[in-house]
């Protein structure tokens, strides 16, 4: 009997290893979105101070677009920002921003300092629209197809790697679909 006991650590470890192997396939920053493949929520937001282009769902529908939730108080947004600037410069892509829970003027000042990659920006001061999108924190980015359906959700900053490996392929695919 005691000999069998000696196999116990091995058995426990085998379980653990199997569980790690499965766990590895899970991305820790992934939060399952209920919105994937669902139509974009309908909304209409005012422009932020110092900007003319307000954002409503009508601006987005009919084009392949990024909807980026950002705020000047959010440190990861500052990390993400240069990448968005780069995308705006290099890609012919509609980039829209939801300026989340911001005090008047702060978002505009932040964009003056760092540059403005957005075609349209909506001011979501009370965070209502972000709730419709199921936003849990900033930054979050949604990729919307020309049919107005949300096709991809990125939680956390878009890094160069995430852009080239995860998001750009989705965008390219959606553009192909749009051309058909």
């Amino acid at each position: 009997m005691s000999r069998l006991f000696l196999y116990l650590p091995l058995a426990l470890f085998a379980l653990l290893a199997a569980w790690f192997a499965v766990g590895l396939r899970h991305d820790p920053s992934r939060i399952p979105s209920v919105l994937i493949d669902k139509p974009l929520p309908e909304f209409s937001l005012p422009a932020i101070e110092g900007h003319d282009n307000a954002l409503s769902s009508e601006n987005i529908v009919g084009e392949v677009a990024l909807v980026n939730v950002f705020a000047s108080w959010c440190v990861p947004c500052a990390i993400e920002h240069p990448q968005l600037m780069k995308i705006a410069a290099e890609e012919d892509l509609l980039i829209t921003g939801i300026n989340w829970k911001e005090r008047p003027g702060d978002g505009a000042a932040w964009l003056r300092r760092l540059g403005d990659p957005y075609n349209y920006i909506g001011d979501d001061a009370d965070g209502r629209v972000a709730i419709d999108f199921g936003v849990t924190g900033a930054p979050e980015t949604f990729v919307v197809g020309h049919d107005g359906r949300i096709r991809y959700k990125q939680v956390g900053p878009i890094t160069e790697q995430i852009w080239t490996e995860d998001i750009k392929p989705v965008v390219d695919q959606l553009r192909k679909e749009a051309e058909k």
Partner: protein
Amino acid sequence: MIAELGNFALIVALMAALWQAVFPLMGAVRRDRALAAGSANSALAQLALIAFAFGCLTIAYAQSDFSVANVVQNSHSAKPFVYKLTGVWGNHEGSMLLWVLILAVFGAAVAMTRAGSLKVVTLAAQGAIAAAFIAFILFTSNPFERVLPAASDGMDLNPLLQDPGLIIHPPFLYLGYVGYSVTFAYAIAGLIRGRIDAEWARAVRPFALAAWVFLTIGIAIGSWWAYYELGWGGFWAWDPVENASFMPWLAGTAFLHSVRVVEKRGALKVWTVLLAILAFSLSLVGTFLVRSGILTSVHAFAVDPERGMFILAILALAIGGALTLFALRAGALRAEGAFQPASREGALIVNNVLLVTMTATVFIGTFYPLFIDVLTGERLTVGAPYFNAVFAPLTLLLLFAMAPGAVLAWKKGRLGAAFRQAAPAAGAAAVAMIIALWMTWPKSAAAAFAAGLAVWAGGGALIELARRVDLFSSPKRSLARFAGLPRSFIGMTIAHVGMAVVIIGAMGAGVWRTETVRLMNIGDVISAGGYEATLKSVDEVQGPNFISETATFDISRNGRQLDSFAAERRYYPVRQMQTTEAAIRTTFFGDFYLSVGERQTEAGWAVKAWYNPLVLWLWLGSGLLALGGVVAALPAAQRKPVQSPAAEGAPA
């Protein structure tokens, strides 16, 4: 050119490691001495080659060679020179290179020990581990990869890592993690040879102590870094990666205690071997945790499943292999000495059961979120409340058992006598408890109780020391007896006192601290723990690779003017990251700690002030723990010709 040389050296090191894993073992089996003796040389060659490769990478960093991808990603021409050098291990690839370098250092240390078949088999196991990790570097994480054309400048090192604490934290931690590879290799060798005895214990103990000392220092430095750099005034967050370093420490502490029983009494063999395997397995799991990004953590550098899979494969081979060997061979190990429950051995078993239970609770808390995610896809985190609720009572039990454990005799002790002997410690503990309660009321009484138990634990060790040196005879006699004490006993006493000091420090910094937050403008005052700080000025200062917002405060205590100090918020433009540099005034009794937040438009700056009592005790206690380990590892002094009274009370 230099990068290619480094790469080449690493490839040759892989060959050396593979050779070391296979051929000397064949030599040992065939009784071919020359072949068997080769393992020591190959371990030394491996060290030279890896040190050379590491030197090459360091030169690439020193010269800011932006044709090397690793340098581009983690360095910047404007970075201070010392951080260019330490940037070598501030990233995944470089830190893995440091890992194998340390592995080679330990391999070489084993190679220097007395020749014998135990050494050959141990070095073979060590070589196999080295080969696996060098292959991991070469195939998935090569630091010598080039980028062509060369980049014009680098992306800078994560500013959180540009800090003196972080220069030394990872090397110490790795020295600890990797040090357990030696105990692991010895365990494998012991199982293969079917002999776990006093000789085995004496061979493995210095390495186990070295690993434990390094790990203790590494954890303490990490905790110290979190304390002053992260700007939230805390020292321990039960973050997955902190836990990853803590688990091997707990298992290693258990091992240090049980290996004494093997050495002295020839018992607990199966259990001790299992602990040796466990300590290194947990170190590997720690590496896996940080390097695979399987759990979210401030430390997880990158989510990379490919690397994770490779490390998981190494893990499965090493741990799975070792445990298979354990299952097949451990049954043949025979205990030699019998003992009564109330004995030093019995106390050490209690210690082991508690420490392993603590390891398990940390393990469960750390991996539970992953487990749930795999089963249900649900996301959750296990926070400090779980750990405090489960861990604290176990720690209290451990502290309680430490005093009688230190005074009990081997083989057959008397529990009643042990408690009577420790009675003065109980008195001191009661006094400490009352003082703590009086000074900290209405804070948690449990913390005062814990501090009292710490005094009891440390006191128990000191009482045994007093008895052994016959303290109340004459100073001369006591000194003479002290000189004759075994190093391991002195080390144990220092470490137990250190543990008590750490616990008291943890109560101070964790439970008894006070905190104030307010919005401040120039001239405003914030106070905590009797200190008052007046905001004098806020200036923008240009650093070498950052811009700093420096807030200067004048501080006074109970109306008496003291010096002024400055808290900073630094902005690193290349990485677009901000860090906080807290202002800390340290005394023996406590720290006054200020951290400045974002400017809130016209209302002023958000400033947090803490008074953290006894924080210094955490670092002093950790130092004592490490010192105790060092003293215990020192080779025993040459035994003098027998002095008459030394025979009594045969030292443990």
